[in-house]
């Protein structure tokens, strides 16, 4: 635990400039990850750079044409309760409700969760499955990076020195869409995921046929990954039970988990298929028009309901 210094930025430009001029910064937003790592002695920043005072970085806006814009400082609690997110990006609201407890959700930010780049980060499978894009500000100006290319490994992102994530953009949802995130962990609150799965599906105008699908797996690889082989099996096909099962099996092949304190590689591998099957099943139901109450979605997401 070192004695770090404290800086605050009032604008994005100020933050970038500060990081450019003074080395050894650790950006702090919600502070939840930073304080834990600092107390463990894992991170010893020379100074923390508080970006929470930068106006506008917490804004959430949605329109059917441009989709969802999430300011990096949008709290996980906001993601959980925002009517547009619940309505149009339900897997993201479910992931938020599965995230730690209420107190942490009131502090933790979506940008912090993304930049922490944990393989098990709860928002990551849903963001990936919704095709999120990262807007980054830096000394050279702004750039856009798909989320897929942003998380590079455990704790590693595509951020260059003096860059910061300012927003995430999710494309507009297609019609006839549904999604479910399930977090497999010992308890139904507070735990880091042993395995996390998000499936987002949209159906074609032709009944029972998959138009588009994205399946994202968390905590079974160095980063959150898309089960692309499974997706290929479904795209353009009818979404009957057998097809979903095949896709689920294919997804299990994508997993490349390790043993750690939260579970063995063998167990992680063993639950991928059932969780993919289950998330696809409910996603299809929602896409077909079933309205699952939020309590039910939450129950499924945290395995309080089987």
């Amino acid at each position, binding site marked *: 635990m070192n004695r770090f210094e404290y800086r605050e930025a009032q604008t994005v430009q100020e933050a970038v400039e500060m990081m450019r001029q003074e080395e050894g910064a650790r950006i702090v937003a919600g502070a939840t990850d930073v304080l834990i790592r600092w107390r463990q002695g894992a991170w010893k920043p020379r100074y923390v750079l508080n970006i*929470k005072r930068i106006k506008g970085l917490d804004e959430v806006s949605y329109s059917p044409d441009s989709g969802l814009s999430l300011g990096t400082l949008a709290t996980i609690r906001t993601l959980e309760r925002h009517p547009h997110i619940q309505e149009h990006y339900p897997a993201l609201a479910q992931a938020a409700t599965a995230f730690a407890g209420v107190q942490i959700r*009131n502090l933790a930010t979506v940008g912090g969760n993304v930049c922490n780049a944990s393989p098990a980060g709860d928002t990551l499978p849903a963001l990936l499955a919704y095709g999120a894009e990262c807007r980054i500000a830096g000394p050279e100006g702004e750039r856009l990076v798909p989320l897929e290319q942003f998380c590079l490994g455990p704790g590693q992102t595509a951020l260059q020195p003096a860059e910061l994530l300012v927003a995430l953009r999710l494309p507009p949802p297609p019609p006839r869409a549904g999604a479910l995130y399930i977090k497999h962990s010992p308890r139904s609150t507070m735990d880091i995921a042993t395995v996390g799965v998000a499936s987002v599906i949209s159906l074609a105008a032709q009944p029972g046929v998959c138009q588009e699908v994205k399946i994202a797996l968390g905590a079974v690889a160095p980063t959150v990954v898309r089960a692309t082989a499974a997706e290929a099996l479904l795209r353009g096909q009818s979404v009957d039970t057998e097809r979903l099962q095949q896709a689920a099996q294919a997804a299990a092949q994508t997993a490349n988990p390790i043993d750690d304190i939260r579970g063995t590689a063998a167990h992680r591998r063993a639950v991928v298929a059932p969780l993919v099957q289950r998330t696809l099943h409910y996603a299809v139901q929602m896409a077909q028009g079933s309205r699952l109450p939020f309590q039910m979605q939450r129950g499924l997401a945290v395995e309080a309901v089987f």
Partner: protein
Amino acid sequence: MTHPLSLTINGESYTLLVEPYCSLLDMLRDELQLTGTKKGCDEGDCGACTVLMNGKTVTSCMVLALDARDKEITTVEGLRQGNTLHPVQAAFVQYGGVQCGFCTPGLIMSGVGLLLENPRPTEEEVRFAIGGNLCRCTGYAKVVQAILKAAETMQAQAS
């Protein structure tokens, strides 16, 4: 190097100097001797340090004191009105929701925070709202009952 910090706690203004690495929890306890808020784990996992920050429940061990600048903090000490307990406090007493008491301030703040957002919670909603508060003594049943009873009382008082 210390930095100046101004904030409001339980309706009173405070100005003090704190180190950058001082958490809101340590500031409340060590600098201001507001010891009602407890430290159970210092890593956001137990909820014993829960306070309201601008009306939202937060684990104060996870908040840098300097981040609380210009904010309104409510701790358990701020709930009593003179000798009258807040309905959530009174319900914890009446319905056996208190045993060793160490989780109690945090649990009460979570209960208060819940009822500010949702005055008529179901039992399931109460359990999820306190899902970040660890209690090792009560098994939660009487705590949940107390919060539900407090909600009833507060609804009755409001009408």
